[in-house]
């Protein structure tokens, strides 16, 4: 992985590893480079893995209308295994359809309507937050309107949306975007459930939706005394994001010392999302962490905090033994290259 950083990411789309493919697509989407459109189209057409949904969304993020004719037929012919009893194939089709909406095309509207009418988790949970983030164009608006607190949380007896922490965390994220009183009430309830990952998301969503004194008190209490590092980190991030920057200190400590490396990575990610260079030293220290995911989050965080001279610190990532770290480093350097090479 040397040379042109954009090429590193484009080449990643052709990897034999489906996760390398998918992460390359995700990072190319973040960069928003028109040059990546054709390789991404080739990727979503060729790959039969369900993780290729990231490729459709990357095309949406880049925003080139010329991708539309390639995406449109894939809503109904996604070229992947139809695990009809699960949500893999449905998610690929939904990714194509939602990406079309983001590109102001209604070519996937019929399929999304079908999913929404069935109350399918693919629409409400896995893609709920994405749909709520769609731009304000006519085909997207109708689908955004279907995602309400009621439609998110009133599910049939057979649904596992509210019992599976995986889907429930997505619901919690969507509720934070719906942000009405009922959503906040539900988020306060979710801040007390057994899964730390749902509690953590509920804390972030609650303050994103309504950073009132009461809500801030609830989340600050989680930041202070939840039994898990993960929730304390997420809650501290939520409170800091809401303006109480002193809470970032606890996140900084967790980034350096959390016992679970995933928690450490979450802390590093949070420091990046908060922005500013107050915690640059901690983030840079995490570039040398033993866990690759922590290193990935550290590179991503450096990208976000806009520190003055990070090039040298991140350069090592281009030769990292972990391919996903190398991709993240490529994305860092590609951001600079992309300006000249779009």
């Amino acid at each position, binding site marked *: 992985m040397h040379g042109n950083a954009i090429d590193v990411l484009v080449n990643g789309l052709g990897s034999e590893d489906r996760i390398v493919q998918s992460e390359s697509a995700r990072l190319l989407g973040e960069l928003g480079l028109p040059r990546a459109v054709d390789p991404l189209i080739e990727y979503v057409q060729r790959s039969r893995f369900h993780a290729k949904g990231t490729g459709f969304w990357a095309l949406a993020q880049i925003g080139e209308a010329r991708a539309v004719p390639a995406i449109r037929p894939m809503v109904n012919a996604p070229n992947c295994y139809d695990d009809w009893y699960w949500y893999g194939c449905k998610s690929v089709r939904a990714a194509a359809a939602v990406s079309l909406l983001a590109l102001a095309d209604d070519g996937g509207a019929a399929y999304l309507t079908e999913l929404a009418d069935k109350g399918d988790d693919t629409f409400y949970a896995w893609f709920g937050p994405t749909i709520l983030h769609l731009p304000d164009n006519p085909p997207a608006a109708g689908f955004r309107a279907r995602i309400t607190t009621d439609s998110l949380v009133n599910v049939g007896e057979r649904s596992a949306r509210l019992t599976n922490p995986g889907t429930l965390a997505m619901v919690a994220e969507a509720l934070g975007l719906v942000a009405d009183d009922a959503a906040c009430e539900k988020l306060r309830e979710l801040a007390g459930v*057994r899964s730390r*990952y749902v509690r953590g998301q509920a804390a972030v969503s609650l303050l994103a939706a309504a950073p009132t004194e009461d809500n801030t008190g609830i989340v600050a209490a989680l930041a202070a005394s939840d039994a898990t590092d993960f929730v304390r980190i997420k809650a501290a991030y939520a409170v800091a994001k809401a303006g109480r920057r002193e809470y970032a200190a606890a996140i900084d400590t967790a980034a350096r010392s959390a016992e679970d490396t995933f928690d450490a990575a979450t802390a590093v990610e949070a420091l990046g999302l908060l922005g500013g260079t107050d915690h640059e030293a901690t983030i840079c220290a995490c570039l040398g962490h033993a866990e690759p995911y922590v290193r990935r989050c550290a590179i991503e965080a450096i990208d976000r905090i806009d520190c003055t001279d990070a090039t040298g610190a991140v350069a090592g990532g281009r030769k990292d033994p972990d391919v996903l770290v190398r991709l993240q480093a490529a994305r860092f350097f590609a951001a600079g290259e992309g300006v000249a090479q779009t």
Partner: protein
Amino acid sequence: MSANGEFQIGVAVRDISPPQPTRLKPTGMGRLVPTRGVLDPLRVEAMAIRAGGELAFVTSSDLRTVWIEWVQEIREAVAARTGCDPGRVLISGTHNHCSSPEAADDSPEAKAALEAANRKIIDGFIDACVEGAGSLRPAEIATATFTLREPVGQNRRFRLSNGTCVNTWGSGPVIPPGMKAVGPGGPDSDRADVLVAREVGAERPFALFISYPSHPHLCALPYFSGEFPGAVKRRVERLIPGATAMQASHAGGNIDLHCIHPMPDGEPAQVQWFKDSAELLAERFTRDLLPAIPTGGYSRPSKMRHEYWSTEGAEPAGSKRLTVLNAVALGDVALVSMPGELFIELAQDIHAASPFPHNILMGYNGSRQGYVPRPLGFEQGSYEVMRGPSLTVEEDLAQPSSVRSRIETGREITAKILEILHRLR
């Protein structure tokens, strides 16, 4: 040593392929149509073991599910026909998702076909045990643990950047927009154990019992098949003429065989892909198994120790949960029949803490617990835990009759297994 106290082993195999497959379908993975036939025969195998005058049986089968009612009938019948203590019949399956038939429809013909298929399975277990006892011969045993160098069973949970897990069976994980792909949600299954039996002083074994955590789950074809474990057994028997291969799965709750996806479209191509995949995985597996077969260090245990433990009668009213543990100790080797849907981390815990240097774990023994992760697995979500335990402790306490495991189930089962093993040691 007297003939009666001499260490002996006998093995036998029975075909348990459904007699009328086209009126049936395999359970699991939501098949919608009747099967079109049997791709390769389903089997049950039994190993009879006599040590210190005591008799025990370990069985393996190409089944996804062995019902406790079957286990009870098999034990009683084997005891009646061999004089063995009924508790010393250890049951296991591979959890193969191309087996364990159900009726394809509500017709009387389909119901009759199911009844005949199930009768054949139960009789197959019993007859294999009886034949195994009838073929007991002087033997010696050794065990080996080996590491798979190429992927076979891989962790089927994948972690997203919000901390939760999604399933990565079949064609891999879904990664929703905005999420980073973190990595596997747990360890892969790269450890296997094998118990090898040979005639005293012989060069080649006549029986191998393989213990490997996996969830044979290549895809939902409308056919019966022994899947990957069946392919391993056939391959071993081809490569070691005269040997009977047995295989049990255990702790396969979070392990799948999805390392060779994606699958092509259309049934003819999928059938060929299925066959090729099973053979490829069997080739990878046996490539590491065969060199691991011990050439020395065989022993002839002079006594057998045994313990049976079950929660029958101990569960609260209305509970549909059931844990059956059944262990036989032969010298340095422990054979442990246990629930099957534990997550692989729990098997690692058992191997690490067992007082026995060699542990042959065999799952899917009639227990009912659902999937059993460590506590964090419940918090991460995904298919295995998507319907519970409840999101709050209070809700859990209000619903004690669920078949599904509780937060503490994994700890309780591993602790009980280790307690038994310490007593047997």
